[in-house]
């Protein structure tokens, strides 16, 4: 017998079987932490309500944030594992909607590789219950960061490029801008002290606080840096390398081989992050696995390896990866290994019915 209730029961059993604490965060949560973590882009998906005090609350839009916040509040350091299954709420094109999500969060695990394998296994087991043999798309945040760190370019460009990773249009625009050669002679720049004096005068005249937001020194430094960067080109070979790398997308083994060849020809040391990806491939078995060099969530706390699983409809059924910077962003004192994923139960059910 296979009906929705039966699949649901199986999924419950899978969630319970993770050797993890079953987490049930409240449905009503303060909205501010979500805006703080993910910005307005995610904020527009929230279902908001306002307390009589004016404080904003939202219906739980995901499980990760409350689980991780609670973990930090109870003192970090001990390895912990959480699993969840329940409703989340998000705005969609055609109105607010309630979805069921299941997932796991593995925090401060001694071996990040083992943890990520457990995440993959969980996601695949969940998809399997719905008869889905997924297409798995892998992305390498750690790999891109390693490549960027070694690519020849003036240092300030690195953070600008990293910041746009995962947003192909913005990254493409930046690379295009970098490719335009500036034939202008380096102009003589005003001294930093003069700039600071000028900016301070302007800010005071406009009634701007000199301490609350951007300071005159910060503006002057970025102004000088920008002028210097206009003269400090990213070498054409580096741009070609980035383009070539970001265009790599296809069956995982083929893609990794191409990246290895690219690394060898450019004398880049990418062995460690490539091996990290290879270590997980056996566990993924017969699934169709692709590696997409430009794939990354648009959230800067992701690290290492990220993934998405899709089925016949192309909808993302499961997504997750490693996010070692998340706990730090939420108040922990140092990076703490974290990995996890969530699966979209409604989409799985729709996939099953197809």
């Amino acid at each position: 017998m296979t009906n929705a209730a039966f699949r649901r029961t199986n999924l419950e059993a899978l969630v319970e079987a993770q050797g993890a604490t079953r987490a049930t965060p409240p449905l009503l949560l303060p909205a501010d932490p979500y805006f703080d973590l993910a910005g307005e882009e995610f904020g527009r998906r929230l279902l908001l309500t306002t307390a009589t005090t004016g404080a904003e609350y939202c219906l739980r839009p995901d499980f990760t944030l409350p689980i991780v916040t609670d973990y930090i509040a109870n003192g970090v350091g001990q390895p912990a594992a959480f699993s969840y299954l329940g409703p989340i709420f998000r705005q969609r094109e055609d109105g607010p909607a309630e979805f069921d999500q299941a997932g796991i969060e593995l925090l401060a695990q001694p071996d990040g590789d083992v943890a990520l394998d457990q995440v993959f296994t969980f996601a695949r087991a969940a998809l399997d219950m719905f008869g889905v043999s997924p297409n798995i798309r892998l992305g390498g945040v750690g790999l891109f960061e390693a490549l960027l760190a070694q690519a020849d370019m003036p240092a300030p460009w690195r953070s600008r490029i990293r910041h746009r990773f995962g947003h192909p249009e913005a990254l493409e625009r930046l690379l295009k801008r970098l490719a335009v050669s500036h034939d202008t002679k380096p102009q003589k720049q005003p001294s930093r002290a003069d700039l600071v004096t000028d900016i301070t005068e302007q800010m005071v005249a406009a009634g701007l606080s000199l301490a609350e937001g951007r300071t005159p020194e910060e503006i002057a430094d970025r102004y000088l840096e920008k002028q210097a960067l206009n003269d400090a080109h990213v070498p054409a070979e580096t741009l070609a390398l980035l383009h070539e790398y970001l265009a790599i997308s296809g069956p995982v083994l083929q893609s990794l081989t191409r990246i290895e060849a690219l690394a060898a020809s450019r004398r880049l040391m990418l062995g460690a992050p490539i091996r990290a990806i290879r270590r997980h491939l056996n566990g993924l078995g017969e699934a169709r696995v692709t590696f997409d060099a430009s794939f990354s969530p648009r959230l800067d706390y992701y690290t290492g390896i990220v993934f998405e699983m899709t089925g016949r409809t192309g909808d993302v059924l499961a997504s997750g990866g490693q996010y070692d910077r998340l706990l730090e962003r939420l108040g922990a004192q140092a990076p703490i290994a974290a990995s996890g994923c969530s699966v979209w139960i409604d989409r799985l059910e729709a996939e099953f019915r197809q």
Partner: protein
Amino acid sequence: MTGITLAVPSKGRLEELTREWFAANGLVITRPGGARSYLGAIEGLPEVTVRFFPASEIARELIRGNVDFGVTGRDLIHETSETGPQSVAIARPLGFGNADVVVAVPDAWIDVTRMHDLADVASDFRSRHGRWLRIATKYITITRQHFARFGIAEYRIVESLGATEAAPASGVADIIVDITTTGSTLTANALRVLEDGVLLQSEACLIVSRTAKFSARRRAQLDSVLSRLGAEVSL
């Protein structure tokens, strides 16, 4: 339902200009109860009911399909709902109420001249100042859409329902997204529009709802009024 409903701005300059524009095209909008009445008519067209609304409510009612056609600003259609532009059809721009929705930063930010500069500033603002870059605006939907397009995610919106240009000086926000016609208010407040910071060029338009249900008869009534106004739509 028989007959069609036209929504007209209920007060101020926009009401005057709308009624003048209709009159110039041979249709006289009457408001029998004066400025406090919210129902009107068009002389000689009994099938058209005129309802007077604030401009932002006209946008909302058009998007929801509660009125059939009306006059409001393009900016309000974009702001009222992410799906606003798909939910209506612009029958024709009316040539008044022109204004731009723009991104403006303090003059003193000499290093920020384009949106990509803002992307850089936003990306490490939090690590420098312990908070997100704050943008004061009443155009929340438009800001979110366009900043996403520029790849800027690291900011918070502070909703501002008036005197937005004063927000940087009062410390409420770092920069603003606001509507401007001549830019003089911005200049007076030592703010500067970014070179590629025009998010939307707006003007008053005659707009038809795509979500309203048009029977053949009502559609014919609509087309007849539109053609007298030199406008047409495909819905």
